[in-house]
């Protein structure tokens, strides 16, 4: 396994299964931990474990003045961090290319799926708006970072409660009412599904770190609940025909249903009030 990893994998793939016993289309066990159990200082948080890959997301809400050209829009700022504790190939220091590309990907997913409409974050036109800082930190990297990050982000945002803010007419200052809290309005629920391409033909779902290293390419498909594609992210790698891409999309739509059920179950279990 250490000397000829590719051959080792090929032997398994010929039998249509993988070394850890999974089918080619099977995901690792996903667990989600939402709310006060994760980060108590954040306004919303979630911990997602996809097999061994552990990702934690914390959302903090702050107030700021909106930009001049979009006076009725708030901001969402995602930031993905891959600290050196999660895998030996990440060094400490400025964010590497993978972290930056992942941050950009998450920002695109939020934008494309219209998960949170920026106008909803505005409190007073031109004067005050919410800024949601979403920090996604990987604690253990075992492949499939993008899926886990999107999932963690979705779960954390569902958990965020924003206090009601009113602007006092006479003084022009804002008053924050911590007693009255409303959840953030989430319009769509995007779910990402990642595939690894082997030898130009075989597609496996939810690759581990080892499989990602051996793969010749990756595809990530983000779908929302209406079956619309929010993102088809295929950063290079071996070429795929349109039919193969279609297979991936169908699998992604099935996965979306599974994940949605899981999130709904967890949310129901933590809102007894």
């Amino acid at each position, binding site marked *: 396994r250490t000397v000829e990893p590719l051959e080792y994998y090929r032997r398994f793939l010929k039998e249509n299964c993988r070394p850890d016993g999974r089918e080619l289309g099977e995901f690792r066990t996903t667990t989600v931990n939402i709310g006060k159990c994760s980060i108590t200082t954040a306004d919303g948080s979630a911990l997602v474990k996809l097999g061994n890959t552990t990702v934690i997301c914390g959302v903090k809400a702050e107030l700021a003045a909106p930009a001049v050209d979009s006076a009725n829009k708030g901001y969402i700022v995602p930031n993905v961090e891959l600290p050196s504790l999660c895998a030996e190939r990440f060094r400490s220091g400025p964010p590497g*290319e*993978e972290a*930056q*590309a992942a*941050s*950009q*990907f998450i*920002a*695109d997913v939020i*934008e*494309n*799926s*219209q998960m949170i409409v920026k106008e909803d974050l505005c409190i007073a036109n031109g004067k005050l708006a919410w800024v949601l800082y979403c920090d996604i930190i990987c604690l253990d990297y075992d492949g499939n970072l993008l899926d886990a990050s999107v999932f963690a982000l979705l779960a954390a945002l569902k958990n965020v409660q924003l206090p009601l803010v009113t602007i006092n007419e006479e003084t022009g200052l804002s008053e924050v009412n911590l007693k009255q809290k409303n959840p953030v309005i989430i319009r769509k629920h995007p779910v990402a599904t990642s595939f690894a391409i082997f030898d130009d033909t075989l597609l496996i779902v939810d690759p581990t770190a080892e499989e990602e290293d051996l793969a*010749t*390419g990756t*595809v990530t498909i983000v779908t*929302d609940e209406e*079956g*619309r*594609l*929010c*993102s*088809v*992210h*295929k*950063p*290079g*790698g*071996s*070429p*795929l*025909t*349109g039919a193969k*891409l*279609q297979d991936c*999309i169908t699998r992604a739509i099935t996965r979306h249903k599974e994940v949605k059920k899981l999130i709904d179950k967890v949310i129901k279990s933590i809102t007894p009030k």
Partner: protein
Amino acid sequence: VCPGDTSVLAGVYGPAEAKISKELPDRAALEVLLRPKVGLPGVLERSREQLLRQTCEAVVLGVLHPRTAVSLVLQVLSDAGSLLSCCLNAACMALLDAGLPLTALFCGVTCTLQPDGAILLDPTARQEQEARATLTFAIASTGRKVLMSTTKGSCSVEEMQHCLATAQRAADTIFQFYRDSVSRRYSK
């Protein structure tokens, strides 16, 4: 390469000596640097660099030049829409011109889905802004397969397949352009 008013200048350096920290024992290490027209490279440039790098790695036969580095530097001269596909085309032509061994050529095509359902190829900046969704594909010359794909905005599955089919047809025109440019350059 200048489709319309968007122009990107691409330069390829290599295969050259690689730094020991960056060299790979069995293949060439590919590095892409994308410099925007204004400002310092930011997160968006990094993600584009990653897309370009992995697309190029799939076509460049790195195994023929182990422990070397190939650098691809792109400078955006002007941006009037479809920037990413312009960068892809520039990168491919630069790799061709440099004489690096490639398994296939690739070309970048951008399609937008307008609010009225029409599919537009090679949009201008204005059309991109109005569009419901923008899809960029890198299509390989062998079998018109999809090498790279990025989407902005959401679309349904059928729309995506339509755009893909349109992009594959458009790829033929672009490959013809490659052939013409190369033959012009070498037929002195």
